[in-house]
């Protein structure tokens, strides 16, 4: 093994040897290295956000027919750095009557919850912070901490708007966690493992091909989990001023800001891991660093779509938002899980048929399509029924829900 095939492992081994050479016990050397690794990963992630913010602002600018940041540095690339400096030097205003413990814990927890996910992401075949055998579960569990952060800051701020926004936000997060987790089960089932790295290894065929429905659900639910447009009800300015973080300023607000962008990208990384084959690509196993590049590219693509949606869609109403989760995504996800389980059992692939794997992929894809068609048909039926109930006259004249729903919003 030399530096060029796997620089990461090379570095680790070298450092470990160095520390042991200094006379440290093996356990303590490993501990120091782990600590250092965690530090580097966390710092890297935080700094990565700077680039991310620039990327997003630039992109959104383009979508909105503007230039985006273009003053500081070439193409405005230093802009986030300047913003960062500004936010660092701003005053921390602590409003009167806050509950200090939750108020101060909130932002820290928000960032920590996102960063903790990075600990188990397989960046390359060998570069995994902690290769847990239940890392999928870990990701879901840590997601819960983010919700607590929201609640804490909403409660601690001693502000009605913040509290209401926190309520709303947690309701949204909890609701969308359900389809998210159920959709997660599909890759878990296909790979037979709860380990993210194992899931990536098993993806000879990307799971987005095998399970497009689950991928779709995961994508939608993950946007909602991040709370970005079109699911950004938690910071609906017209209704809630600025969301649960209204009372924060300075670096504390900055932490929410960072957590937001980081979360969005993290969830894109997760999507890439679960459905797009993670670090997989040509020569990724020989040259792990190549895997990191593939991984980032895939995640970047997902993130791009994310931003694209953000720039294109208007915000949902709260009942629509809840409806999408409970009436569409959750049943669909359950259907997808059942379907996958049945097909996975019936067609284990490989030996059964001459082209077993192809058949399996084909059947999976077909079944997913059937599921989509059924869901669509049911929705159309539901709409029709709703229309007949609410607007019998308009329905009889051939109007559809879309025609009347424009006026419903103001009702």
């Amino acid at each position, binding site marked *: 093994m030399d530096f060029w095939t796997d620089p990461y492992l090379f570095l680790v081994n070298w450092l470990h040897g160095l520390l042991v050479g200094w006379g440290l016990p093996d*356990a303590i050397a490993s501990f120091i290295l782990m600590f250092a690794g965690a530090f580097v990963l966390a710092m890297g992630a935080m700094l990565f956000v700077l680039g991310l913010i620039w990327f997003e602002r630039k992109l959104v600018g383009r979508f909105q027919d503007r230039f985006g940041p273009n003053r500081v540095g070439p193409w405005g690339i230093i802009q986030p750095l300047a913003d960062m400096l500004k936010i660092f030097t701003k005053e921390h205003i602590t409003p009167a009557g806050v*509950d200090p*413990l*939750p108020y101060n*814990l909130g932002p820290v927890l928000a960032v920590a919850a996102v960063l903790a996910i990075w600990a188990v992401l397989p960046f390359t075949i060998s570069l995994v912070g902690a290769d*847990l*055998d*239940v890392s999928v*579960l*870990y990701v*879901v*569990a*840590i*997601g*819960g*901490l983010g*919700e*607590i952060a929201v*609640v*804490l800051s909403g*409660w601690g701020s001693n502000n009605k708007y913040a*509290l209401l926004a926190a*309520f709303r936000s*947690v309701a949204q997060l*909890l609701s969308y*966690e359900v389809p998210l987790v159920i959709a997660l089960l599909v890759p878990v089932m296909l790979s*037979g493992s*709860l380990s993210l790295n194992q899931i990536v290894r098993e993806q000879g065929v990307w799971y987005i091909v095998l399970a497009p429905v689950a991928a779709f659900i995961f994508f939608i639910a993950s946007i909602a989990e991040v709370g970005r447009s079109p699911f950004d009800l938690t910071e609906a300015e017209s209704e809630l001023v600025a969301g649960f973080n209204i009372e924060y300023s300075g670096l504390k607000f900055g932490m929410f800001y960072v957590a937001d962008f980081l979360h969005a990208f993290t969830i894109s990384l997760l999507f890439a891991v679960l459905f797009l084959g993670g670090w997989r690509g040509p020569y990724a196993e020989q040259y792990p660093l190549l895997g990191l590049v593939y991984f980032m590219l895939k995640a970047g693509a997902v993130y791009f779509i994310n931003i694209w949606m953000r720039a294109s869609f208007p915000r949902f109403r709260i009942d629509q938002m809840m409806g999408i989760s409970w009436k569409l995504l959750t049943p669909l996800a359950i259907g997808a899980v059942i379907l996958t389980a049945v097909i996975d059992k019936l067609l284990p692939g490989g030996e059964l048929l001459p082209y077993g794997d192809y058949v399996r992929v084909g059947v999976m894809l077909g079944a997913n399509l059937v599921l989509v068609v059924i869901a669509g048909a049911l929705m159309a039926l539901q709409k029709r029924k709703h229309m007949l109930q609410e607007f019998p006259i308009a329905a009889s004249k051939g109007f559809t829900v879309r025609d009347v729903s424009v006026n419903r919003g103001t009702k």
Partner: protein
Amino acid sequence: MSAAQVLFILVSTVTLFSAVMVVSVRRMMHAALWLIVSLLGVAVLFVLLQAGFFAMVQVLIYIGAISILIIFAVMLTRQVMSEKIPQLNRGWVAGLVAAGGLMIILAFVFRDFPGSLATTMGDPSAGDVVTLGKALADPNGFAIPFELASILLVAALIGTIYIAMERKGGEQ
């Protein structure tokens, strides 16, 4: 004293301390936060017991779901419990005595229990997720208890919705 022992003492101290805080602080919100800390400590204990899966489930269910629920309930009912008045009822000394007595009894029981001196854990791979999952889904294993648990959850779900639902058209 090995590293594992140090870690154990550290974690259990934190767990027990925050448990004490849970039952003694006046602010419900803070009690809930301490509860989260305590539950996290329990999760770490699970890891030390080679039950990583359960540590994750602990975080997922207790911290992700149950404590959120509790915090919600605290927020929804915050007007009634003023933080100025004592949060312990009049019979709290009796409660303390009862709990303390139980602790003493348990300590003696553990002292006399021969298995409590065991220091070696079993093979870590015996309790992995796959084995557990197979045991849970095996008709000759625990399939029916498992199904019963799921029925219990559904029943709780429906029951809770029914209980907490606002009755339309006024109460009887």
